[in-house]
């Protein structure tokens, strides 16, 4: 990738007109995922809407995290893993031969369960992805780092200490730093794998607030064990069980009037 295209992408910050409610960002068709012979995902089909928060819920081991990792092809890194079926982002098959994985991961950012600050300064953490893409110009880097830290609601807490080691931040700050780092490369989609599971309630509330703000610009897919969290932040919810998508629809409907009795018993805490 050339320097120029990156810069253009970054400076075109205010994106085109606000998306229409039902634009589909990601189409998943008959997606199966195998670990060796084990079928971890079984024929998932769903449409994920642009600039909406989609929550994935389900008991441990149901395939939520595996599913999430397919979207940025982190699943490629699993030895013995194999994908079947299609995932189209903006109409393009991400498993196509033509797809550049680096480009895909730039478009589809990821935030992990445990915060993963690199052993570098706060500034270098946020700038890392840009530097990987070949951005060297310091003023561009500074500008983007500030913008992303602001957007991740961390700027005011760290602006005087950008050269401080990121490892010295609190858990909640580290997680917001990871969000800033993820959005620095200008993704359209952000994947979040239980981003609050290691945080206290205050830090969790801040992240949830942030998710609701980020929704105006990004398509967010969040895996969560916390039913209330799914209800609070998401527009649509998918319930996975044993690798199958049991039910998928507007969050309100899933939580108040699910079609499937299994969904209902999971949500009401009868299993999982």
């Amino acid at each position, binding site marked *: 990738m050339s320097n120029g295209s990156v810069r253009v992408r970054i400076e075109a910050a205010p994106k085109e007109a606000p998306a229409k409610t039902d634009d589909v960002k990601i189409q998943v068709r008959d997606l199966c995922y195998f670990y060796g012979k084990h079928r971890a995902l079984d024929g998932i089909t769903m449409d994920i809407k642009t600039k909406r928060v989609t929550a994935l819920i389900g008991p441990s081991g149901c395939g939520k995290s595996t599913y999430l990792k397919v979207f*940025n092809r*982190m699943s490629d*890194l699993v030895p013995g893993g194999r994908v079947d079926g299609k995932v189209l982002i903006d109409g393009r098959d991400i498993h196509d031969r033509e797809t550049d*994985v*680096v*480009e895909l*991961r*730039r478009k589809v*950012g*990821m935030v*992990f*369960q*445990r915060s*993963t600050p*690199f*052993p*570098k300064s706060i500034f270098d953490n946020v700038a*890392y*992805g840009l530097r*990987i*893409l070949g951005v060297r110009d310091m003023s561009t880097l500074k500008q983007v780092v500030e913008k992303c830290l602001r957007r991740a609601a961390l700027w005011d807490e760290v602006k005087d200490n950008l050269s401080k*080691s990121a*490892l*010295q*931040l*609190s*858990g909640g700050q580290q997680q917001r730093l*990871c969000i800033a*780092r*993820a959005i620095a*490369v200008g993704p359209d989609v952000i994947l979040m794998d239980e981003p609050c599971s290691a945080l206290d309630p205050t830090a969790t509330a801040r992240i949830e607030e942030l998710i609701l703000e980020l929704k105006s610009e990004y398509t967010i897919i969040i895996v969560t064990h916390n039913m209330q969290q799914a209800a609070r932040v998401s527009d649509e919810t998918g319930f996975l069980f044993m690798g199958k998508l049991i039910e998928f629809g507007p969050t309100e409907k899933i939580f108040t009037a699910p079609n499937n009795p299994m969904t209902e018993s999971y949500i009401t805490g009868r299993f999982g």
Partner: protein
Amino acid sequence: MNETAVQERIVSSFRATRGRRRTANIVFFIAVTFCAFTVLLPLFSILSHLLTQGLRSINVDFLIRLPKPVGEPGGGMANAIVGSLILLCIAVLVGVPIGLGAGIYMSEYASSRFASMVRFVTDVMNGIPSIVYGMFAYAVFVLPMRSFSALSGGAALGIMMVPIVTRTTEEFVGAVPQSLREAGLALGAPKWRVTLDIVLTSAMSGIVTGIMVALARVAGETAPLLFTAFGNHFWHSSLTEPIAALPLQIFAYAISPFDDWHRQAWAGALVLISIIFVVNLFANRYAIRQSHASHVKR
């Protein structure tokens, strides 16, 4: 016998043996304490002997002058001090890249089978007597070059460093959490960049400590230098010539019949130990600082 009687018997025998238990306790304590001090004794006597003899013999001349001809008192080991430092630099240049690379390969790329094979080989290498490294370097470097040289001596020491650096690198790189690698890859970074930028930085304090330990280990080696660096009574003029080294000079002076040379051998030993001590001190300081930086609030 009813239950109270049993109880009483137990209590009375417990009382009866109290004295013996106390004695056994004290005897055991004295025995292990004695052993602990016996361990310390040789170390302290070596160090105190070295310090008294060395400090008495060391002076400015020793540090800045060349050796005097046989029979003439005075002079120093400046060439050997510099020579040793140069040999160690060459050793680092040879040993660290190979050890570091091998350790990274074993931890990040190798199949577990291959890694355990390399691990076994490095353990064996660690146990090879140092004179054998010297013979190897003689055969591989000295004979083809037709000359003893600083390069061959440094290479011999460098090869000795490889197993230690490899093992510590592998260990500390392997201990970096997988989630950090994934976070790097998820930002679109290729594996080699994640390895260099993130994994290696995270493991750096441990790796540096390993390098320092290896360096301290080879700094005092004499055997690998006997027929590689060879020793030199004058300043070396190039790295392809024989070069003086502290352990060699100490050896030569210690077995000589001259009192003044014995004196200088002690001074040389003191300088050598000081260099090793300083290296270890830096390694420790560095490791502690790094681990503070990376463990705060984790």
